[in-house]
Each structure stands twice: as C-alpha cells, then as structure tokens.
C-alpha cells in the first residue's frame, strides 16, 4: 500500500502528462492544465512547510543560546516583521507602506550587492583558473581574453586588429560556442528523456520512500 499507491500514481500521471504533448484534444488539455495547476498549488503550500522547517532549525538554536543564536534571532524577527507588514499592506503592497520601505531600502540593496560580489569573484576565478597548463586550458584562456578585449570599447579602437577582433569574437560566439551549446542541449534532452522514463516506469523510486 505505502509503495504501490505512489508507484501506480506515478505511472498513470506521468504517462498522462507525456500524452499532453501528442494529444491536442481540448478535453485532454483541460485535464493536463488542471494537473499542472495542482502542482503549482502544492509548491505554494510547501512554503508553509518551509517556514516550519526554518523555525524548527533556528528556534532551538536561539532558545539554547547556541553559536550565532543572536543572528538567528535577528533573522526570525526580520521574517516576522516582513510577514506582518506584507499581510497588513495586503493588496496595497505597491503603495507607501512599511512593506514597501523594507523592500526598497533593505531587500533591493542586499540583493543587488550579493549579486555584485560576482564582479570580484569572476576576477579571482579567472586569475586562478586561466593558466595555460595544456591545450584545453590554453583555448579556454585564449577565447576568454579575445572576447574580453573585443567586448570593451577600448578593444575596438586598437590599431589593425581592432577591426577584426570583434568579428572573430562573433565567429567564436556563433560557431564553436553554438556547436558546444547545442551539444549540451541535445545531450541534456536525451538525459531528460531517459530520466523522465525511469521515473515514470518506476525504476527510479528514491523519492517514494523505502518502506
């Protein structure tokens, strides 16, 4: 019972959803659309479980004064304040409200700065990884440098090669790059088909429990 029901459900639902692609009939599509909406609802409901998990992980740390408990407390308070502000503002979340203030002056800069760390990491990763140890690494390095030089306005103003560099960069982007990407896409699609089939046929069942 505990295993068979999920297995049968997997097979039926999976097969039905594969059919969505090949069966254009509107009566069929009504149901596939309905199923997908259920999936979206489940994913949304799981947010509550996520919240519970968060509290289960962090609240004991605060109560037992474990390492970093103060920060965890800050996090829980920030969460509570934002939630209350969000639900009090309700439909008017875009208007002036505590929620909007929190959004504009804390969320936006924190988000943007976290993202901006990449400018620094990309420099250190490039420095470390781009050493011409062998032919592969040399190509990686060469392509990166050509593209970087060709992309900036200063590169285009270089004498003689300034004209050809952007064109050569476009060639790298249009030919070898496209060839490699398509290979990744095609391979991944084959992998996806095999994975999907393994799930639907019940060969992969680690998500369905052990007992």
């Amino acid at each position: 019972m505990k295993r068979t029901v999920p297995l049968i459900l997997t097979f039926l639902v999976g097969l039905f959803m594969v059919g969505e692609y090949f069966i254009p009939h509107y009566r069929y599509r009504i149901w596939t659309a309905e199923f997908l909406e259920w999936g979206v609802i489940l994913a949304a409901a799981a947010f509550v479980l996520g919240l519970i998990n968060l509290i289960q992980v962090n609240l004991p740390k605060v109560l037992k004064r474990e390492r970093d408990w103060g920060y965890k407390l800050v996090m829980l308070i920030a969460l509570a304040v934002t939630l209350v502000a969000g639900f009090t503002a309700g439909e008017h979340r875009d208007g002036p409200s505590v929620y909007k203030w929190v959004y504009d002056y804390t969320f936006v800069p924190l988000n943007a700065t976290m993202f901006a760390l990449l400018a620094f990491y990309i420099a250190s990763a490039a420095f470390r990884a781009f050493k011409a140890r062998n032919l592969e690494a040399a190509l990686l390095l060469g392509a990166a440098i050509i593209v970087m030089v060709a992309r900036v306005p200063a590169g285009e103003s270089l004498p003689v090669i300034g004209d050809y560099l952007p064109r050569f960069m476009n060639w790298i982007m249009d030919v070898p790059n496209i060839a490699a990407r398509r290979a990744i896409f095609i391979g991944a699609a084959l992998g996806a088909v095999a994975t999907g089939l393994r799930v639907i046929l019940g060969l992969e069942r680690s998500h369905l429990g052990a007992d």
Partner: protein
Amino acid sequence: MEPSVLSSLDIAGAWVSIALTLGIFSFLYADNPVYKLAEHLFLGISIGISMTEMYYGVVRPNLIDKLAAGNVLSVVPLVMCAMLFARLASKKLGWLARIPIAFIVAAYAGVKLTGEANGNLMTQVAQSMPNLAELWRDHGIWDWSADGAGVFSGIFLVVGLSACLLHFYFSARQGPTMRGISRFGVLVLMLSFGASFGYTVMGRISLAIGRAQELLGLDKPAEEAAQIHPQLASVVCGVLVIAFLVVWRLRGGGAEQEEAA
C-alpha cells in the same frame, strides 16, 4: 511626479541601504559579524517577501478564490496539501506525503520529458544542418565581412557538434579514434566555455559599478542626492565597518578562518 523634498523615512532608508551594501561587501574581506547581521536580515526579509507574494500571487487566486467560488475540483489539491503536511502530524501517517510528491514529480517528469525533447533535441538538430552549397555561393570558404561565415564554419559547426555529442558517449571503449573525436569535442567545449566566461565579465562588472554609483550618490538626481548626502553616508558607514573589523580582528575574531584559508 518626483518629490523634491524627501521624507525623513526615505533619507533614513537611503542610509540603511548604503550601510547594508557595505555590510555585504565586507564579506570580501572575511566572514564577519557585520556581514552575518546583513546576511540574516536578508534571509528573514526575503522569506517574508516571498511568502507574502506567494500567498497573493498563487494561493489566494488559484486555491482559496476557487474554493470560495465552489469549484469542486479544487478540493483535490487541498487534500494533497493536507497529505503533504501529514508528516508533521504523525510518523505513522508520514507516508501519505509520498502521494502528492509522487504526483508532482511524475507530472513534471512527464511534461518536461516531451518539452525538453522538443525544444532542446528536435529544434537544435533541425537548426544544425547547414546548406553548404548556399554558404559557398554567398560567402566562399571564410567571409570576414560576415563574421567568418562560410563553408569552413558550416562544416566546423556540424563536426564540432557531433564531436561534442560523441564525447558524452558512455559506452565508448577508449580506442584511438574515439579518443581523438572526444579530444576535439573537449576543445570545442573549452572554446565555448572561455568565450562565455569572457562574455559574462562585462555584465558582472556592470553590477558592481551600479553599487558603486549608489554609494557615491551618482545614481540619483542632484537635488535628491543633496538631501541624502550619500557620499557622507558611505564614508561614515565605511569607517564604522572598517573600525569594527579592526577591533574584531584584534580581539581574535576570524582567527579560525584564517587558519583554514
């Protein structure tokens, strides 16, 4: 209309924003209490925001409103949601959660199986069969004026793509031919990775420039900047953060990390 006089809340907000920006940037030096504070604020706030948006964007219109309108079918997802919560209620009923999980995994696996196969397999293959005769007529072997289009590029595309695909061939025993093809595939992959890496640099630096412009107050109209004094805020917050880091290090903070690094 742009308000010419900012409220004190907005000015305070702009200062908070600058302080948090510097707090996150302090991570580049080391994991430290200032960063930790910013990080945990960020976590709490972001979860609060996403839960609010999820409720108003999905749960209410797709579930609650539909149930309220008497849509009988909506009972099914409601029941599945309840099953998902079963694990919290008791260990014995925990297995019930597998039913919605089986449902959602199977549904998406089914849909994506065909979706991926169409978008990433069929379409990509269809686009990778160049007409070499036409390329020869229009561009010859290699045409600088068309970014290197021509027969060479056409053949390179097909051969490179095939070699990359065969590089992923799992059943291959390492014969010399196979090794050669695979090597060529790897070289094409490396060219592509290097180019993509180089290409992304610009976007990433732009992001940091954006942050720097805010710190220096260059992103706002002059009259707003005059009220906020962003440069003053940056210097004050910057000095505070650095002073704190110095004191923190002198007291032995972060020593453990140094050891690891």
